[in-house]
């Protein structure tokens, strides 16, 4: 119970900008409290499935982790880059933090395209190393969209993040970094996030007719598209 308010607090910072990063937010409550309360609990929902799934595999040593002390909050980041970003985009720069010496800037999803373009053109982050997503189903806006940028000129990395709701779309960055084409397709495949303006938004790794998005936390590890498997492989189930 004591965790609930804390969780609520934690979910707000994205908009308010007070507490920890969103990941923190979820994990604190996820640890000990009742799983019954929330079916979509990320960490908890997943654990029971694992041993059952890997029948042969040794069960993970998984006692409910008691939160001893408050987890270290990532320090807020305030350098010249952040100041320039804030001067340019104002409230769209929601929360800059530093975690393990790596710069993370949480931005508003609505400005994703403009901020990306600015980062490439003005701040010389000309290399998009990776773009991916993380699912936090209990959060109000469940997805983190995460772009890892690199600047050859400055030899520096920067991580841009945005929160997206279940059916929220975000603008594609294919026109800024063409490498995003396949990477965004993979996100669409695995998480079901849609990118506005993407030239070719199809599944990347799974068959096109597949139903479901496997890297969502509510997609069980044993789950699969039974109908597809039966129709195309002619077997009842892979498991």
């Amino acid at each position: 119970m004591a965790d609930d308010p804390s969780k609520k607090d934690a979910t707000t910072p994205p908009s308010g900008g007070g507490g920890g990063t969103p990941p923190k937010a979820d994990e604190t409550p996820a640890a000990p409290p009742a799983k019954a309360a929330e079916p979509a609990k990320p960490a908890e929902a997943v654990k029971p499935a694992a041993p059952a799934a890997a029948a042969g595999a040794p069960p993970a040593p998984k006692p409910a982790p008691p939160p001893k002390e408050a987890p270290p909050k990532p320090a807020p980041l305030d350098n010249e880059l952040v100041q320039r970003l804030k001067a340019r985009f104002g409230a769209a720069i929601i929360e800059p933090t530093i975690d393990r010496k790596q710069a993370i800037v949480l931005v508003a999803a609505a400005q994703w395209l403009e901020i990306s373009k600015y980062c490439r053109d003005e701040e010389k982050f000309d290399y998009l190393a990776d773009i991916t997503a993380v699912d936090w189903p209990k959060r109000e806006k469940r997805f983190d969209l995460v772009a890892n940028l690199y600047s050859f000129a400055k030899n520096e990395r920067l991580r841009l993040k945005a929160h997206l709701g279940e059916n929220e779309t975000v603008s594609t960055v294919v026109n800024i970094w063409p490498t995003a084409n396949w990477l965004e397709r993979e996100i669409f495949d695995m998480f079901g996030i849609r990118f506005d303006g993407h030239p070719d938004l199809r599944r990347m790794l799974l068959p096109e007719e597949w139903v479901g998005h496997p890297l969502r936390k509510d997609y069980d590890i044993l789950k699969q598209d039974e109908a597809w498997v039966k129709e195309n492989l002619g077997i009842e189930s892979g498991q």
Partner: protein
Amino acid sequence: MDETRTKSGTQVETTVLGADEIILNMGPQHPSTHGVLRVKLKLDGERVAGSECIIGYLHRGVEKIAEHRSYQQFAPYVDRMDYVAAVSNGLGYCEAVEKLLGAEAPPRARVVRTILTELQRIASHLVWLGTHALDIGALTPLFYCFREREEILKIYEKYCGARLTTHAFRIGGLQYETYDGFEAEVERFCNDFSQRIDEYETLLTENRIWLGRTKGVGVLSAADAIALGVSGPVLRASGVKWDIRKAAPYAAYDQYKFEIPTGPNGDTYDRYMVRMEEMRQSRLICLQAIENIPSGPIMARIGKVLKPPPGEVYHAIEAPKGELGYYIVSDGTTQPYRVRVRPPSFVNLQAFDQMARGSLVADVVAIIGTIDIVLGEVDR
């Protein structure tokens, strides 16, 4: 050919074909695709007018599996992605988790890791060279390359018992001490290898057929390479002098001297030359490293149950094929909340269309070979 399901294909518009255009399906069962890669080519006579890579045949859901294993349990899985460079995969993962934990491997472990990883780079490039030359029609280098690779695999086998999917490193350091005579064997290999690599070059570098099949084939400009996110030897052959071992040194790379080879034209021949030079440089790194392996512990004190504090980290290493990145999110439990692998093969393969467009259909085989993909990593 009913292609209605393929909506809005930007790359191959199969529904609208010119009078002389045909669709040629290459793979997934094709010896030169190095695994289960399917390429749909739109051909205008002998020229490639467009292409589309269809991947995923080897998709095993590695990132999903990671969320259901403890940090240590997941380590062997990463070896199965780029299975011709398993040691490099392991290094990236172990270092990423160490960063997440705020721990660091002891100096001795870092040096041994560097040696084994550089040997792996040589082994991976040897597989590339042998198969790439074979694809183009030079049969001999394959046998020589695999002969030398065998020596490296024997070192691995003696070190940890496995040859390919080695699981050589552990989070926090190493599981095993080096065996007696390890330095001598690495040194002997490195000394022999110098002449061996000259042998390969004798076979290929000035060979007229080789030049004809590689010069000016699959050209990728530096600007295109950066825009397409290409990394590793493919990027360097396009003239971008960027190597993560220098830009953000990890393991023990900051202690050794080595050069970053680059190419002037970004064609298949330059990529060949860059990788040949990289093997020489890796050899030099190994020789420097075995001269002075520090003594001391090989494992950091990190405890048996790993619970990294909540947070996230992105750690990239220069794998033989390019930037191999791990983005790991911890929720404070023993299992990672999310592991994202940034695979160099997957991203580099995206440049295939750019490189193949306008070339002859026979060169497609050379271009697939020169990107150096491993489908286990492309599909994960």
